[in-house]
Structure formats: structure tokens, C-alpha cells
């Protein structure tokens, strides 16, 4: 079984030599001529999804990144044989070569912003009290008509839902607004932008930028300047990473 780490430009054998992958297995290159696939052989697959193994996978991708931006494979892309891998690559070779060209000379940077949401904190406390300290809530008995008439719990529940929906809409609005302002701050420096989808109630906004390696200093400077001009804004900037967010076909 072959575990696929990433695809790179051709003639990467020298870079892959000596790199160790999952469970210390040596990484080797399967070349199609137009693309190199970095793989390691394993007797058993699939590998369980664990933080440790995903890190090992990423370590190999980073070794490729140190040479040139690869197309990282999602963890868990295993092939029963080299022939199966070659066939899969041959089917999409042109598209994969285009995708590789798209990220060439670039890295991914991530900007994560925590959005202010004081209302959520207040409700969190109220919900904590409702759910109790541990274990699942006990299922309530079915209400009879008299119970429904006396109770206001249903209306209160809907009112809480309304508040939550309002808060989520406000969070979406804030996130969209910030995304636009960050995009302005790094306009002309980043090659592409991708926003990580988040839960409606999420307080965080995560944006990935594809940045040319040679523009990294300008990128950091532009973001620092933006953050300095926004006291109280909670921002985390990380990278450079392999371009995990820019491997899907671009939407025109």
C-alpha cells in the first residue's frame, strides 16, 4: 500500500532522499514525467487519523515545501499499488500540473481573528446552568395540554433561539467586514485568498493567503501595520505552510 504525501514538480528525487514518512518509512518518488508523487510503502492501511500521524504526514510535505511548493495530499490518500497511483495521476495529470503551477514559488499564510462577542459569553453561562455540570440531560416527559397552557418554557426557548440567530448574523457581518479590510491591507501582495468555513456560532475568522515567498516580508509588514492600527483586535498570523487551502480547482 502506498501512502501519498504530496505532488511536486519533476526531478525531486534528490530532495526526497533521506526523508522519513509515517512510522519512519522512507519516502520515495513515483514520477510520471510531468509530476513527482512523494509516497511511502506500508504493509497496512488505512492509517488511523491521529494528530501524531497527521503531523508526520505534514513533516514530509514541509520537506517538499523547503524545495518548492508542493500540492499537499489530504491525509488518507492510499493506493494499493504503484500502478493504481500512476493511473490516478494520469487521469488528472493536466489539471494537477496546472494546480502545481498555480502555487509555484508561493506559500500559504494563515490569519486568524477572534471576533468580539460579549453576548455569547452571557448566554454560555445561562446554558451551562440549564445543562448541568455533567452527563446528558434527562429526557422530559411528554407534556399534556394543561402543562402546555401553563408553561412558558417553549416560548422562552424560541426567544433564546431568536437571540442566538441574531448573534450569529451579527458575527457573520463582523467577519465579512473584517475580511474585506484585511484583504485591502494586503492587496497587491497576496496572490489568492481563501476563507475557511466556520460554524455559524464561531467567533473566529480564518483566512488563508497564497503569498509568493519573495513577498513574505512585505506581507508580514502590511499585516502588522493593519493590526497596530486596530487596538484590541485579536489576531494570530502563522506560516509559511504548504498551500493546503489552494489545491482545489480555482473557481472562475
Amino acid at each position, binding site marked *: 500500500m502506498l501512502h501519498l504525501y504530496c505532488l511536486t514538480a519533476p526531478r525531486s528525487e534528490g530532495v526526497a532522499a533521506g526523508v522519513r514518512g509515517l512510522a519512519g518509512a522512507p519516502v520515495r518518488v513515483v514520477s510520471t514525467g510531468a509530476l513527482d508523487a512523494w509516497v511511502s510503502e506500508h504493509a497496512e492501511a488505512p492509517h488511523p487519523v491521529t494528530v501524531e500521524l497527521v503531523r508526520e504526514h505534514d513533516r514530509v510535505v514541509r520537506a517538499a515545501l523547503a524545495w518548492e511548493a508542493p500540492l499537499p495530499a489530504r491525509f488518507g490518500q492510499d493506493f494499493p499499488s504503484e500502478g493504481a497511483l500512476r493511473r490516478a495521476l494520469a487521469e488528472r495529470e493536466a489539471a494537477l500540473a496546472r494546480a502545481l503551477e498555480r502555487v*509555484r514559488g508561493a506559500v500559504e499564510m494563515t490569519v486568524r481573528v477572534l471576533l468580539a462577542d460579549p453576548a455569547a459569553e452571557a448566554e454560555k453561562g445561562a446554558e451551562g446552568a440549564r445543562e448541568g455540570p455533567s452527563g446528558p440531560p434527562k429526557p422530559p416527559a411528554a407534556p399534556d395540554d394543561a402543562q402546555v397552557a401553563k408553561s412558558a418554557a417553549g416560548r422562552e426557548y424560541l426567544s433564546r433561539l431568536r437571540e442566538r440567530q441574531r448573534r450569529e448574523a451579527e458575527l457573520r457581518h463582523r467577519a465579512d467586514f473584517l475580511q474585506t479590510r484585511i484583504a485591502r491591507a494586503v492587496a497587491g501582495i497576496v496572490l489568492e485568498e481563501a476563507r475557511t468555513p466556520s460554524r455559524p456560532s464561531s467567533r473566529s475568522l480564518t483566512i488563508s493567503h497564497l503569498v509568493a515567498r519573495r513577498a513574505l516580508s512585505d506581507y*508580514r509588514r502590511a499585516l502588522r501595520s493593519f493590526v497596530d492600527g486596530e487596538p484590541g483586535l485579536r489576531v494570530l498570523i502563522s506560516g509559511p505552510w504548504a498551500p493546503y487551502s489552494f489545491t482545489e480547482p480555482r473557481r472562475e
Partner: protein
Amino acid sequence: MSEREPARAEEPRVEVSRGSAAEFAEELRTLAPSLPDRINADPEHVENGLARLVLTVIELLRNVLEHQAVRRMDGGTLTDEEVERLGLALMRLDERMQELKHTFGLSDEELTIDLGPLGRLG
């Protein structure tokens, strides 16, 4: 290949705005359970994988129902008793979902559907 820029291995760095490191650490800790997963073919994990799939769909439908319920309540087309019944029904559905999530060891973060550029549902 010769025209490529020489490789410069830069280690990833993390920069955090002043005073917010603890908050980010907490936020990232809550994200750990959302590590990309898939249905494992191991028989012991199949039940959990299927439960996650089914509960994700139920969670999606529940969210749609909740939005519709609030819209109907605000629209003023429901009697007080209907509002109360609707609210109680949704509240019980929520409680039942909490129970099932607890049974299968699933977090809210795991019961989402990623629609890519359209966002996440759940």
C-alpha cells in the same frame, strides 16, 4: 527547473497580537476534535461513523426547523399555545440531540457539513 528560485526552508512562525495568546490557545483547544475525519472501516468504528453521519443530517434539519419556527413566531401567525408547543418540541429535540451526542461521544464541531465556499452548516 533551473529557473526556479533556490529553496529557502523557512520554519513556520506564529505571531499573536498583544494580550490575546491565552484566548487563542483556548480557541484552538476547542478545535482539536474537528480534525478531519472519515468513516473508518474498522467494525468497532463503523457504528460511530454512521451515527455521526446521521446526527449531522438531523442537526442540519433541526437548524432549518429552528429558523423557520422563529420566523413564524415573529410573523405573528401562531397562537400563544402554538408558539409554546413549537418551542417545547424544539427544546426536546435539542435535549434529545445532546443526549445522542453524549452517547456517541460527538461534539458540536463534529456535526457540521462543510459546503466549502458556502460555509458550514450545523
